[in-house]
């Protein structure tokens, strides 16, 4: 086999096998360097994979040389390549910027373990995305979940612990629900491979177990993806996590669960169960709309910068789900694009928060007065990413909101009211982003505060600006993600096999 053929496996194996090696790198700084090298390598692999599947091909890899359905197959198509890009991109960028911030938040002797957990998280998320086997997805979901519990528990505040405990409980329930669902489908079809399930599920006569399985899988994955109203673990977990961990996880963790949800649903259940499309819309659409509206309004009144952004993530998950709930090509395209663009915007915002945290211990909005004078570059990057989050033309966020509105209009009957929902929630986003801007630029600095110029460390600042500029770049030239998103939609609902 050639090197190129091995790429799907290497995507997982490189970060995964680096993790135990990192544990051995005790001297300070080495662990970071090793982890960053592994992160960048997997990003490079993801880029190579994206290029390889751009023309609509699917890369299939038979683990252990055993062809599916007997062995475990890995599959990379346009949709997985897109998600891989954002997972590894977020992981690598956050690692690249992480050193100074992590040095402040994690004791040196615990850092090798921390970076090892980071790589495991990266490997777990990548493993979920490339896997074409329902049970294998569960295993890698657990790797990534355990790793994210560890990473979040590294937060310096004691409130991180109850937050992560709640995440652990809800995450485990979600994973177990998924496992029950997979078990029921396996019982009725005798296979674990997704494509094989799709082929065999049509022969099943007794549909009760399949219906129940669909329910369990959907709810389990919705828990993991923090779909409203199952999102209660998310705001606190993201708020109290170490800043760089928030950058990494907020950019990609929930999106991977959504990816599995969309993929599982459209591959296994849709056009196999009668009326399933209708039921899926009936289930997902109200949750998406409620999530968008409720989370956006909560964010408008939130006083803590990190929690505000975390709450806004719940609304953004709503957008992604909304696109998927149309079960149309336009809808899936919009969903996939929004995954990508939101990762850019939210990743950039949290990077800017990590910069701010260098000089502002307390990240409540009321304490951030005078930030723009002390850290003008950071604040400017934050504003750029904020504009992208709102969806201002010229930024990446605009592209996906536009696609979403187009898809909503196509969806028929309720089209206009959904457009109204999107517009209203965008206005709400304007409000909460404005509140941040107001705090940074126009609020009086607290009396005893230092007002001298003091930017964040260069390494962190550079990565932050790179991400901010990408927000503009992909707003003007969205060809690459758009091609992948279109490819995904064609694969999932376009009738391609």
């Amino acid at each position, binding site marked *: 086999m050639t090197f190129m053929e091995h790429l799907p496996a290497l995507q997982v194996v490189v970060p995964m096998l680096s993790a135990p090696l990192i544990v051995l790198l005790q001297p300070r700084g080495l662990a970071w360097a090793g982890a960053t090298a592994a992160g960048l390598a997997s990003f490079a692999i993801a880029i190579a994979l994206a290029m390889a599947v751009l023309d609509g091909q699917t890369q299939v890899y038979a683990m252990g040389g055993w062809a599916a359905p007997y062995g475990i197959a890995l599959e990379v198509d346009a949709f997985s390549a897109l998600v891989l890009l954002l997972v590894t991109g977020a992981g690598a960028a956050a690692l690249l910027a992480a050193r100074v911030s992590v040095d402040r938040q994690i004791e040196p002797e615990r850092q090798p373990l921390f970076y090892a957990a980071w790589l495991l998280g990266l490997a777990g998320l990548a493993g979920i995305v490339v896997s074409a086997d329902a*049970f294998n997805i*569960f*295993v890698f979901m*657990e790797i990534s979940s*355990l790793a994210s*519990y*560890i990473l979040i*528990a590294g937060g310096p505040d*004691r*409130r991180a*612990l*109850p937050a*992560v*405990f709640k995440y*652990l*409980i809800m995450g*485990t*329930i979600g994973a*177990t629900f998924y*496992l*029950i669902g997979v*078990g*029921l489908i*396996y*019982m009725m079809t005798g296979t*674990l491979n997704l494509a094989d399930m799709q082929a065999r599920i049509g022969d099943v006569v007794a549909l009760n177990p399949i219906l129940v399985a669909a329910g369990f899988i959907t709810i389990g994955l919705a828990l993991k993806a923090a779909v409203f109203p199952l999102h209660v673990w998310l705001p606190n977990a993201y708020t109290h996590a170490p800043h760089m961990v928030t950058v990494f996880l907020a950019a990609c963790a929930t999106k991977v669960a959504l990816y599995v949800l969309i993929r599982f649903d459209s591959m296994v259940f849709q056009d196999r169960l009668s009326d399933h499309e209708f039921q899926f819309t009936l289930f997902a659409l109200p949750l998406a709309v409620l999530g968008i509206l409720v989370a956006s309004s909560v964010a408008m009144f939130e006083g803590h910068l990190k929690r505000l952004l975390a709450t806004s993530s719940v609304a953004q998950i709503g957008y992604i789900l909304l696109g998927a709930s149309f079960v149309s090509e336009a809808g899936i395209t919009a969903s996939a694009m929004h995954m990508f663009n939101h990762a850019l915007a939210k990743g950039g915002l949290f990077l800017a928060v990590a910069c701010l945290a260098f000089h502002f211990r307390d990240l409540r909005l009321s304490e951030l007065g005078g930030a723009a004078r002390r850290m003008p570059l950071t604040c400017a990057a934050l504003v750029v990413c904020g504009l992208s989050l709102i969806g201002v033309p010229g930024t990446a966020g605009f592209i996906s909101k536009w696609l979403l509105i187009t898809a909503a209009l196509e969806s028929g009957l309720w089209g206009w009211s959904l457009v109204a929902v999107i517009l209203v929630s965008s206005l709400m986003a304007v409000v909460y982003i404005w509140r941040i801007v107001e705090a940074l630029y126009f609020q009086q600095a607290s009396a005893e505060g230092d007002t001298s110029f003091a930017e964040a460390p260069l390494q962190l600042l550079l990565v932050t600006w790179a991400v901010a500029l990408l927000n503009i770049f992909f707003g003007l030239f969205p060809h690459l993600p758009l091609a992948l998103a279109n490819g995904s939609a064609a694969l999932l609902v376009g009738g391609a096999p």
Partner: protein
Amino acid sequence: MKLLELLGYYNYWVFAVVLTVGLYAVIRKRNLIKKLIGLSIFQSAVFLLYITMDKVEGGTAPIIQKGVPDQVFSNPLPQVLILTAIVVGVSTLALGLAMVVRIKESYGTIEEHEILGAD
């Protein structure tokens, strides 16, 4: 083989009931250790679901003996899956307990409402 049929349903029902009991403890109890105990019962129930489906009438454990013709074996695949799931379960539990220990040290309690009240 009426009894086997009854046992079949009974296995699934026990799975459903045990799962429910475990989930009830997770939702209802405020003691964090008790929540984890509930979680482990909840996970064990799923093991029962998988193992129940592996049984084949008149079968034995899937270990092939040479020279014995016409052996009937139970299905090995669910067993493999559950071996994995058991280890995943204990891993999650260990991590959860480590967090509980730290929570006890920094809050002085492991009752959920008292922790929420403390911050």
